[in-house]
């Protein structure tokens, strides 16, 4: 809970209580010569779920991966513009990406547990970030994370079995547990349900709604229903541009832009 406390007591927070958790300003991304994002400016509100929608290849994942600098792992990728977390530009030179990623966690499209035990999967983050001082504390974090990911009851008897032995939906929840074990402020999810069946999807959606209480969540999804169900704010991307953003209910019922309307009514994408 430490990070949370820190967030509520930090001077910045007191100064601007309504400040968004993250904010992209004029973000452009290039893969080599090819530009994938054009001047995207988008604020991610605190303790809300923001969903990014748009046709395939429009740059949703690209934007998402900018938020915790996962794009750094792609050699040819170049990012311009500014992305703020609290009051810092995360692309600032003296930001340590490792620390950044501890604060901005990520869940991937395909569940990718480490080929280690369930326990080790969840304990990994707290270990490398030195969040605990004792085995008891670590156990505590692992259990509570698994519990909050709604997985604990299913796996409590086999914490030492490999995480890769779980079902797809369970694996994805394990990845979520793993991500929240480091107590991030923001949680990024790139199509977290696309590899799952409807029941597992429902479980995760419920989970997202619960997590909102403690985390700021950004989710990329191809399912408009899902966006409508879980998110408070929605942003629509098309061909690398942010076309429209706003309250989810507004955007789906009353889109201002023609392209958005075409997309949500199924004419493009």
């Amino acid at each position, binding site marked *: 809970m430490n990070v949370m406390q820190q967030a509520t007591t930090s001077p910045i927070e007191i100064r601007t209580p309504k400040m968004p958790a993250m904010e992209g300003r004029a973000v452009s991304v290039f893969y080599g010569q090819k530009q994938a994002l054009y001047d995207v400016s988008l604020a991610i509100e605190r303790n809300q779920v923001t969903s990014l929608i748009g046709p395939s290849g429009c740059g949703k994942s690209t934007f998402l991966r900018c938020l915790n600098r996962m794009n750094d792992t792609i050699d040819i990728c170049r990012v311009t513009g500014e992305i703020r977390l609290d009051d810092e530009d995360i692309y600032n030179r003296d930001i340590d990406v490792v620390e950044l*990623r*501890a604060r901005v966690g990520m869940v991937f499209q395909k569940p990718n547990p*480490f080929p280690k035990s369930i326990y080790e999967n969840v304990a990994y983050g707290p270990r490398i970030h030195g969040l605990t001082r004792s085995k008891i504390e670590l156990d505590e974090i692992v259990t509570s994370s698994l519990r909050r990911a709604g997985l604990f009851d299913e796996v409590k008897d086999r914490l030492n079995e490999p995480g890769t032995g779980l079902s797809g939906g369970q694996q994805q929840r394990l990845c979520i547990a793993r991500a929240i074990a480091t107590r991030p402020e923001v949680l990024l999810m790139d199509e977290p349900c696309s590899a799952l069946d409807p029941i597992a999807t429902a479980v995760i959606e419920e989970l997202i709604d619960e997590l909102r209480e403690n985390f700021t969540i950004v989710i990329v999804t191809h399912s408009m229903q899902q966006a409508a169900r879980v998110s408070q704010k929605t942003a629509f991307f098309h061909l690398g541009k942010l076309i429209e953003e706003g309250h989810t209910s507004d955007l789906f019922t009353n889109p201002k832009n023609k392209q958005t309307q075409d997309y949500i009514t199924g004419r493009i994408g």
Partner: protein
Amino acid sequence: MALADTNSVITDRAASAGLRRRRYAADLRLRIYGIAAITVAIGMLAVLLGTLIVGGAQAFVQTHIRVTFPVSAEWVKADDPAAGNWRNVVRDGLAQVFPDLSAAEQREVVKVLTNNAQFFVRDAVLANPSVIGSTITLDIPAADPYDQLNKGVITRDTAEENRRLNDQEIQWFDTLVERGLVSKPFNWGLIFNSNSRFPELAGLKGAIVGSFYALLVCFLVSFPIGIGAAVYLEEFAPKNRWTALIEVNINNLAAVPSIIFGLLGLALLIQTFGLPRSAPIVGGLVLALMTLPTIIIVTRNALKSVPPSIREAAFGMGASKHQMIMHHVLPLALPGILTGTIIGLAHALGETAPLLLIGMNAFITSEPGGVMDAATALPTQIYIWADSPERGFVARTSAGILVLLAFLIIMNGVAIFLRQRLERRW
């Protein structure tokens, strides 16, 4: 193309059938060539292993002769037994078996036993000094010609002048056989003796220990450096001219003839750095440089096969690149790395040419005490024996090769086991 011809030319079915038959005959021919080629390859392997086993088998047993030696106090003083006249003790022992020989004949009959028989007796007595004054019965290795006679390599129907043993000597040996003094136990000396001028005593211990030290040095140097280099090239190196050069260089280094590495060891390690000649440390370093490219290449392949999703997951958790590699990628790649390393070491174990150049083919009769001592290695020992004129060394060479092959089979077996048991398929 034949197919095009068939379409235009064929008019009647007979011709078409004939053509088809010819085409199938060509197919059959290719198949037969293939079978023939494989038969030749397998046949050669069979002949090779067959001759080694047939030739080497008899070196795994050794003719011993049981003699009761009177350890008279006249030759061996109780207060200083080591300085005794052991040659006379041996002579007395044989004189008891052949009591009525002339002095000259007695000198000859001693040669039934290995030249070092006196040292066997001495060591036995030193281990048990209470026998001084009484007798001691020992099984002593027979000298090489008699060993060969016993194993049927020297035959009695050869004309006497072409034989290494004359009729008299054969008759002495037959007497020993009649009295039940000759035995042919398993030849532990082959593995637990060091090299010797006398085939009946020569063993591989020194060579095995030397090879062990050399491989140890080779492993200690090439394994960490190889992994470090591979990790850098695969995970960190920017794609530029420099790294491209390193890549090309490594691939070429893997194909440089091994003897060139021997020249490097001789000129650089021995001549320039002043490391001792014939020492396992030089051999090990040379082998390490030879093995390094292999280890780098297999390690890179193992690293490549770790799926990107694991890396992304680690990064997503806020692991630094080093942590991602140390905690996830390397452990997952380790089985592949180990497999490749063991195969590389097996190759190094059989490597001969560079060791010849740095002098690991010296004649050394004790095993090395450390990496700086002069030593031989298994393959160079085999080479030395193959070059020795004595008949007894022919079988020993085959036997030495079988021992070397046994080591190689064990190493490759471990590698295959690791590959099948631990390696993960993604």
